């Protein structure tokens, strides 16, 4: 498949780029750095394999717009179609592919789908394409960073085709994991070997699957394990897991043993139970016996006491028994007798007291007889009291009226405004009042006029003052700014300031104009001097003209021939024009300069005139400093304020005039008022009234003078009534005193020491009158007392009579009780009460003893309880044994204690046993161990499965590696050897690889094998290029033909090698491989151009072309493809300038001689190209001992293979390695046997 056309609609920096007719062989693209070469290469990949997310992120959306994507036109020997891929917005979209056929007329619409594209790619995935068919700067640089060994390994893997998935790393990882797993399993042998010997053996019958396996590892490890094995096995990552499993098994066995022990303990526990039951029975019996004795000991005192009480009862028994209440009945009779006797005595005493009380009551017999008279006087008592009250009331009224008369006179004087000492206040008549009334009215009128004039004067004065204040405030503001207070002056000031401002502006304009004119004059002055070039031109024209004329004149036979005259005329014209042009130009410049000077002078005059005017104005305005504009603004504001004050001044003047008029009117009114007052006082003097009398009060008091005479008459009438009432009161008092003396009931005490309070504060105390009323009350009260005493004497006499009868009844009851007591003594066979009481006391003692004996018996029964029958204690408490009870009790206690100690000991042992049994019963350790063991075994089983999987994958990958190394690598090495020899002009002729090493060696023409690290950087890159070209060749042989993209791969080649590499590439392309080569070095591009390759320059971005010729889109005709192997090396062009760094490397002294190895030459006698060097050591060249520098970092294989099946590949299923491929030592390739050496042999 080859690319014929490339069209980018939008991708990265490219937009609408079209590269048509790309050569099917080699096309060299030149572009400077950042010209878009890598973008172009990525575009090719994107069209072929889709817009991956990484490409989208870097190249999409297009910087210059356009649809994201483009098309490639592909062609091979069978078909020719165009692949168009446009990316959608979706990040996961690889782009929609459409296929069209440009050659077909009836192709119709493009067909969606990438089937054709995939077929064309030959099932080569993108990673293979990127690794095989593209060599970029990145790879070159990566190769440079590798160490020698790493570079050798990388190139080795490249030759074997195993670099694409880093199969070596995968195999290494698999091997490491696998080794860890098997070590983990194998370590079991180690763990078992080191397990303590005391551990019980695992289960007799191991679990299926695990059992045989572990048993196997156990057997040999115990017997024949070497230290080396132990070293390997100890590195296991899962060592802990296996040890854990072993520990768990041991623990499970131990726990099982523990369970068996539990059964034994349980049997022992039952024995403990039985023994304890026996001991407990014994303890109970001994405890019972000891308790019996203990109770008997406790009963000793009560037992003896009961015996003693029994004896006493028997001793005191006998005689007539008395009833229980004998004493109570005796005492009841005695109490009744004493009660009756006491009541009789009390009644007698009460009767004597009543008799004495009657005698103490005093009764006045005279009072009883005159009772009617006293009652009659008592009826006069109210009248006597009324007389006393009337006398007091009338006296008080008289006194009050006199006081009112005095106060009325005083008040009238004060009302008239008279002093208190003018007591001669006489009555004013009505006529006097009438004569005074006109004067009063006149006074009131004048007073009103004066008040009115005063109010008017005050109002006008306030108005005038407010206006005056306004004017003063305005003037004070103006004075603060130094402005005139006159409106005219202020307006003049404003006008001057404005004028001053205009003058300043004129000065500035004149100065600016003068400056402008001055600069213009300078320019004009410069213009007067003609520029040198113009002068030279004019001079040249003039000289040429003169020459032409001179030539025409002096050399008539000039070569110009007949044109000489015309030329001479032209020369005259030119000379004249030059002179005229110079004259007019200088004249015009002089005129403009003069005009300019005149204007400058005019401007100076104007400036001076303005300055003078300014000085004049400054003198007028006393301008010292400050802004004229600000001052003008202040003056304008002040002028406006003054103009606003003009009507106020007018108002102030009017107000001042009115105030003066009002003051005059007030003065006239006051004079009139003074005159009227003088008339008023004259009239008062004439009427005899005080002059200070106020005319305003006179009218108000004239009606009060009539009341004073009426009050004087009322005082006299009240004093007369008081005298009449006092006479009636004295007559009644005399009658009362007479009766009191008659009955002997004069109230002397009242008269001496107890005066009546009411009379005490009076002005005229009347003791007789007061005593009369008290005497009357005393008589009446005495009369009521005598009547009550008579009634009480009658009641007392009746009461004494009833008391005497009661006393008689009690005396009879006492006699009856005496008779009953005598009968009681007789019935008890006693002589008197004392004997009776002694007999009763003896009977009580016997009863008390019986009660005590009962209590003691109850205590004894309680102490015995249900323990034993009382007979048992009767035996124990016999007199013979009662004193030995303590000894018996101590013996029984000792036996009991011994039994209890034994029981306690057994209980402790049983408790311990029970605790152990309980702990075992609750223990889940065994279940947990089984659970853990199951988990560990599951993990081990999983590890086993994993190891099988890893081993199987390893098996297959090792097989693939072997296949690649056996079948693909030798062919690739052969091709690469040829290409490298071409590129290095035969210096290096062979690439080969030693057995069991994944490195390459390069053999020089002299047969010396060099390792990769001995090669220079450029040679390494040539080696890399050779290998890549060889691999592409091999792929082509398998039917996969894809374009190859090379990006600046020749950058580190010297000129000769670069030329040779270019030729190799051209030959390679001529063999049918399309190569797209990008370079940023123009000499490389030129070199390909010289070799007639298709060379193009990449256009500038966004489609702009180079200013120079643009050969980019025009393919350079290429030379005919040279036949493979017949290419002649063209003469080397001169080497382009190379970087100094490169020169240094070129000049470098010969590299340090690397340790080299001379590998055995192939046997001349044997045709197969692959020689089993190891099997034919004698026939080879003297072999240098083992190449010490070629160290195998990765062994080729872990073991030798004996495949029973063969790896088949697409289209090569019949290819297989022969039995001779085993144990390959080296693939020895040479150019001579290249054609036969496609199959390697294993020695």
């Amino acid at each position, binding site marked *: 498949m080859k690319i014929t056309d490339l069209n980018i609609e939008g991708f990265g920096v490219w937009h609408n780029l079209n590269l048509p007719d790309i050569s099917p062989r080699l096309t060299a693209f030149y572009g400077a750095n950042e010209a878009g070469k890598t973008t172009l290469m990525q575009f090719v990949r994107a069209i072929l394999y889709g817009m991956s997310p990484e490409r989208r992120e870097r190249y999409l959306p297009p910087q210059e717009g356009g649809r994201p994507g483009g098309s490639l036109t592909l062609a091979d020997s069978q078909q020719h179609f165009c692949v168009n891929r446009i990316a959608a917005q979706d990040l996961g979209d690889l782009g929609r592919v459409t296929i069209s056929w440009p050659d077909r007329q009836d192709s119709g619409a493009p067909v969606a789908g990438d089937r054709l594209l995939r077929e064309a790619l030959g*099932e080569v*995935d993108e990673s*293979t394409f990127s*690794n095989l068919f593209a060599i970029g700067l990145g790879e070159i640089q990566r190769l440079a960073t590798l160490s020698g060994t790493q570079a050798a390994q990388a190139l080795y893997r490249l030759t074997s085709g*195993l670099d694409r*998935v*880093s*199969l070596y790393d*995968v195999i290494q990882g698999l091997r490491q994991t*696998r*080794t860890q797993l*098997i070590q983990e*399993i*194998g370590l079991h042998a180690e763990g078992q070997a080191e397990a303590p010997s005391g551990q019980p053996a695992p289960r007799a019958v191991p679990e299926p699957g695990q059992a045989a*396996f*572990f*048993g*196997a590892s156990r057997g*040999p490890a115990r017997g*024949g394990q070497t230290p080396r*094995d132990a070293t390997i096995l100890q590195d296991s990552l899962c060592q802990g897991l296996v040890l854990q499993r072993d520990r768990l098994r041991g623990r*499970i066995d131990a*726990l*099982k043993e*523990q*369970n*068996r022990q539990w*059964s034994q303990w349980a*049997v022992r*526990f*039952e024995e403990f139970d039985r023994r304890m039951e026996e001991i407990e029975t014994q303890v109970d019996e001994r405890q019972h016996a000891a308790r019996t004795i203990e109770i008997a000991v406790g009963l000793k005192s009560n037992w003896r006491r009961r015996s003693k009480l029994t004896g006493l009862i028997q001793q005191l028994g006998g005689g007539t028994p008395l009833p229980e209440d004998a004493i109570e009945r005796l005492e009841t009779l005695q109490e009744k007798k004493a009660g009756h006797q006491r009541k009789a005595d009390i009644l007698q005493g009460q009767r004597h007291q009543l008799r004495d009380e009657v005698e103490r009551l005093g009764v006045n017999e005279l009072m009883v007889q005159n009772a009617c008279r006293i009652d009659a006087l008592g009826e006069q008592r109210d009248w006597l009291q009324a007389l006393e009250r009337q006398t007091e009331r009338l006296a008080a009224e008289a006194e009050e009226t006199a006081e009112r008369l005095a106060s009325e006179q005083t008040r009238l004087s004060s009302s008239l405004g008279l002093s208190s000492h003018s007591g001669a206040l006489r009555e004013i008549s009505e006529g006097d009042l009438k004569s005074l009334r006109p004067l009063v009215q006149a006074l009131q009128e004048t007073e009103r006029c004066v008040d009115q004039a005063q109010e008017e004067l005050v109002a006008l004065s306030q108005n005038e003052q407010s206006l005056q204040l306004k004017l003063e405030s305005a003037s004070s503001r103006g004075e603060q700014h130094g402005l005139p207070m006159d409106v005219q002056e202020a307006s003049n000031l404003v006008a001057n300031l404005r004028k001053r401002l205009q003058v300043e502006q004129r000065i500035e304009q004149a100065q600016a104009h003068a400056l402008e004119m001055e600069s213009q004059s300078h320019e004009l002055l410069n213009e007067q001097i003609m520029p040198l070039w113009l002068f030279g031109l004019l001079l040249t024209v003039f000289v040429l003209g003169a020459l032409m004329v001179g030539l025409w004149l002096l050399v008539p036979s000039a070569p110009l021939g007949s044109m000489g005259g015309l030329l001479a005329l032209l020369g005259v014209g030119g000379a004249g024009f030059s002179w005229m042009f110079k004259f007019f130009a200088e004249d015009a410049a002089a005129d403009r300069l003069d005009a300019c000077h005149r204007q400058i002078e005019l401007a100076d005059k104007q400036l001076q005139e303005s300055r003078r005017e300014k000085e004049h104005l400054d003198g007028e305005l006393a301008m010292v400093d400050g802004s004229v504009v600000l001052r003008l603004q202040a003056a304008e504001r002040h002028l406006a304020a003054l103009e606003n004050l003009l009507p106020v001044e007018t108002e102030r003047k009017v107000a001042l005039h009115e105030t003066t008029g009002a003051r005059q009117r007030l003065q006239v009114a006051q004079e009139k008022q003074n005159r009227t007052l003088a008339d008023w006082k004259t009239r008062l003097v004439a009427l005899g009234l005080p002059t200070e009398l106020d005319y305003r009060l006179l009218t108000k008091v004239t009606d009060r003078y009539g009341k004073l005479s009426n009050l004087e008459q009322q005082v006299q009438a009240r004093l007369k009534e008081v005298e009449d009432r006092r006479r009636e009161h004295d007559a009644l008092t005399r009658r009362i005193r007479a009766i009191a003396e008659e009955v002997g009931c004069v109230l002397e005490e009242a008269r001496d020491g107890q005066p009546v309070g009411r009379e005490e504060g009076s002005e005229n105390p009347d003791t007789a009158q007061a005593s009369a009323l008290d005497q009357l009350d005393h008589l009446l009260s005495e009369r009521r007392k005598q009547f009550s005493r008579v009634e009480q004497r009658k009641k007392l006499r009746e009461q004494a009579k009833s008391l005497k009868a009661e006393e008689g009844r009690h005396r009879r009851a006492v006699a009856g009780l005496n008779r009953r007591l005598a009968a009681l003594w007789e019935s008890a066979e006693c002589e008197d009460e004392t004997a009776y009481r002694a007999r009763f006391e003896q009977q009580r003692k016997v009863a008390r003893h019986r009660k005590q004996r009962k209590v003691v018996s109850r205590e004894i029964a309680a102490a015995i309880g249900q323990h034993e029958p009382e007979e048992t204690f009767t035996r124990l408490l016999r007199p013979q044994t009662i004193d030995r009870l303590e000894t018996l009790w101590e013996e029984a206690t000792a036996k009991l204690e011994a039994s209890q100690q034994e029981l306690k000991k057994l209980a402790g042992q049983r408790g311990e046993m029970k605790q152990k049994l309980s702990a*075992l*019963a609750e223990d*889940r350790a065994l*279940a*947990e161990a*089984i*659970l853990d063991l*199951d988990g560990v075994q*599951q*993990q081990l089983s*999983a590890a086993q*499965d*994993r190891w*099988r*999987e*890893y*081993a199987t*994958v390893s*098996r*297959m990958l090792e097989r*693939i590696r072997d296949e690649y190394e056996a079948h693909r690598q030798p062919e690739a090495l052969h091709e690469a050897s040829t290409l490298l020899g071409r590129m290095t002009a035969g210096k290096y002729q062979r690439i080969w690889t030693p057995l069991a090493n994944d490195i390459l060696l390069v053999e020089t023409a002299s047969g010396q094998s060099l390792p990769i690290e001995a090669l220079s950087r450029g040679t390494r890159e040539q080696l890399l290029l050779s290998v890549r070209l060889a691999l592409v060749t091999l792929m082509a042989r*398998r039917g996969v033909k894809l374009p190859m993209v090379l990006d600046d791969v020749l950058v580190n080649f010297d000129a000769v090698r670069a030329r040779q590499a270019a030729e190799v590439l051209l030959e390679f392309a001529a063999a049918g491989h399309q190569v797209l080569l990008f370079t940023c070095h123009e000499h490389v591009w030129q070199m390909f151009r010289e070799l007639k390759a298709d060379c193009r320059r990449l256009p500038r971005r966004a489609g702009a072309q180079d200013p120079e010729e643009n050969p980019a889109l025009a393919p350079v005709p290429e030379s005919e493809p040279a036949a493979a192997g017949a290419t002649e090396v063209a003469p080397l062009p001169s080497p382009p300038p190379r970087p100094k760094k490169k020169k240094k490397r070129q000049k470098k002294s010969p590299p340090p001689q690397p340790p080299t190895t001379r590998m055995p030459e192939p046997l001349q006698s044997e045709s197969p190209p692959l020689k089993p060097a190891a099997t034919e050591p004698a026939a080879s060249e003297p072999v240098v001992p083992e190449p010490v520098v070629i160290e195998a970092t990765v062994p080729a294989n*872990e073991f030798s293979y*004996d495949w*029973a*099946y063969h*790896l088949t*590949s*697409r289209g090569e299923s019949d290819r297989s390695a022969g039995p001779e491929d085993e144990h390959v030592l080296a693939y020895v390739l040479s150019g001579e046997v290249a054609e036969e050496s496609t199959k390697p042999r294993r020695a």
Partner: protein
Amino acid sequence: MSQQTSRTPIRFVHASDLHLERPLGGVSEVPGHLRELFLEAPYLAAQQVFETVLSEGADALLLAGDVVDVELAGPRAVLFLIEQFKRLADHHIPVYWSGGHTDQTTEWPAHARLPENVTRFPTAHVESISCQRDQEPIACIQGISRGPNRPLQDRSPEDGTLDDSQFRRDAHGLFTVGVSYGTDVATGTEGDRVHYMALGGRHRRQTVDQSPGLAHYCGTPQGRTPDESGPHGCTIVRVDESGHVKTRFAATDAVRWLTETIEITAGTDAAGLLDQILQRTGRLSEKHAGPELLISWRILGQGPLIYQLHPGGLADRLLEQVRQQQQQQGMKAWSVAIDCDAPLEVPAQWHDQETILGDLLRQIGQLETNPEIPLKLADFLPEALREIYGAESEHADGGLPETNPLAQLVTIENPLQRQTLLREAAKLGIDLITVEEPRS
């Protein structure tokens, strides 16, 4: 069933394989929050069996072997059983216990006396006991215990064989129940001698004979490993008046293992599969309310996920995500594993690729189609081990001698194992190579 006379309705509870000595297992790592349940689940399930007996008002409990291995279970199980038997004794419910491999009569500790209501059958002969209710016989219980422990398939003549030929229906027409740990008769004739044969020894519930008598394995009350998926419990046997036997399953498991299959399509990615698993988990949680669910996911179908899901790769990562999501969403379920045993189907063009991947796939195909090609895994043993065992003569196919126990590791036992190994190896190879591809 020949006598269709009117009988008293009877009800038994049939249980076996309690295996109190065996906690749950079958997983590499037990999560911390489930460890307690893994340990306690056998006891919880057994207790649920006894609760079922009491709640159902059963006339008897039939234990058909493998109740407990006293040596492994320890005193806890002994005390637990005695306590539960006493509970039944308080309700006058007899227990008929036929010994299996693990619960030999002789293994029971002598000091741990069983309550009076427990009857253990002898190993020498079939013992017949009358089951009574209110002093009236209602059924005849016959049983025998298995002899010394030896797996059934490994029995030899000198072992205590199970002579179950003495099972006979009651001569008086009583309903006859046989209790035994498996039988020695031919498959399908286990129920020929009695009305109901209560069998033990199989962990999965199964009825092996229907006529003339019913022979039934009730299964274990609690599944132990992911292989024992689905509900487990005991069987309630009801005999009606006419002598018809009906069995009913009663779930007793505290932890339920489930194996769920999810079919995916070519367009399913990991996130989609995660969603499907979570949705299915939600439905399962609703369906199996009660026990804790331990779910193993089996992925079938087609698409790139089929060759990406393998242990140590995407399967483990996805499993971790599933567990996290289930825990975050508070589901009463835990995922045990995600297995993908679907046939490996990769894009057809991969086989044709001129790449290492293409070579790998072609090799896989060749090894699959030619089972006679040996894998020779012994070659990959470490050199030290190979040296240790290398002295012995090698096998004809180049591997280790068959007598060498290491062959257990490196020998492929059957074609299925080989097929599985190749499939998983192919997934691993694709994963390793595909991961490396962007670098190249």
